[in-house]
């Protein structure tokens, strides 16, 4: 297996605002940082044919996904001068309004964090094998596709 030293990016259920706040707090001891940029993916209550999405149930090919997250992380550190980067993705049920993706990049100066964050998020959307089942209020479902 390739999964040596590969972090587990997944968290069961939604990512709480307390977790995010605490993650920000932990970076206040890193006084070389001047700029943080955070992306949060939140589950939308989309209406499809009159039915409203109430939650997304996430599954993943976890070994491959963690490998891809690792590769994205390495590529991002190679491309951009970042001080640190953190990625968390939900598995299982995340209700509408709850957060399913948390990407956090930090650097001494701001310009690089904008480019780095967008790069990371687009790479995740394109290359990480995560699957989302959109559950409607009547318990029917459809499969989410990134665009």
């Amino acid at each position: 297996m390739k999964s040596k030293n590969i972090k587990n990016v997944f968290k069961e259920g939604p990512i709480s605002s307390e977790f995010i706040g605490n993650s920000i707090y932990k970076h206040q001891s890193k006084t070389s940082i001047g700029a943080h940029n955070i992306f949060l993916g939140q589950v939308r209550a989309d209406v499809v044919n009159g039915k409203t999405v109430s939650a997304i149930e996430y599954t993943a090919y976890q070994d491959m996904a963690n490998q891809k997250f690792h590769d994205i992380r390495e590529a991002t550190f190679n491309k951009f001068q970042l001080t640190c980067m953190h990625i968390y993705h939900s598995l299982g049920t995340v209700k509408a309004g709850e957060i399913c993706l948390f990407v956090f990049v930090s650097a001494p100066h701001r310009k690089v964090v904008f480019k780095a964050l967008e790069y990371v998020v687009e790479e995740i959307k394109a290359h990480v094998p995560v699957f989302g089942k959109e559950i409607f209020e009547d318990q029917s479902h459809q499969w989410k596709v990134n665009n």
Partner: protein
Amino acid sequence: MQITIKYFGQIVEVTHKTEETLEVSGNQIADVLNTLQTKYIKLKDLGFQIAQNQELVSLNTKISGAEIALLPPFAGG
């Protein structure tokens, strides 16, 4: 060859299982796909990519014996 195959997302609605080990004859990924489409006719209606040993592969990639996975469209984030 005995190959372990994993199914994800919408694929599981057709296979009704998340993993199985199958005997595959032939030496290309295309041969795996043929075996699977024979066993699960509805697979032909679904879009998916195929990974071998956690890397996306094409139909003419050689079968290595490593784990194969059928991956429907990604929906992370």
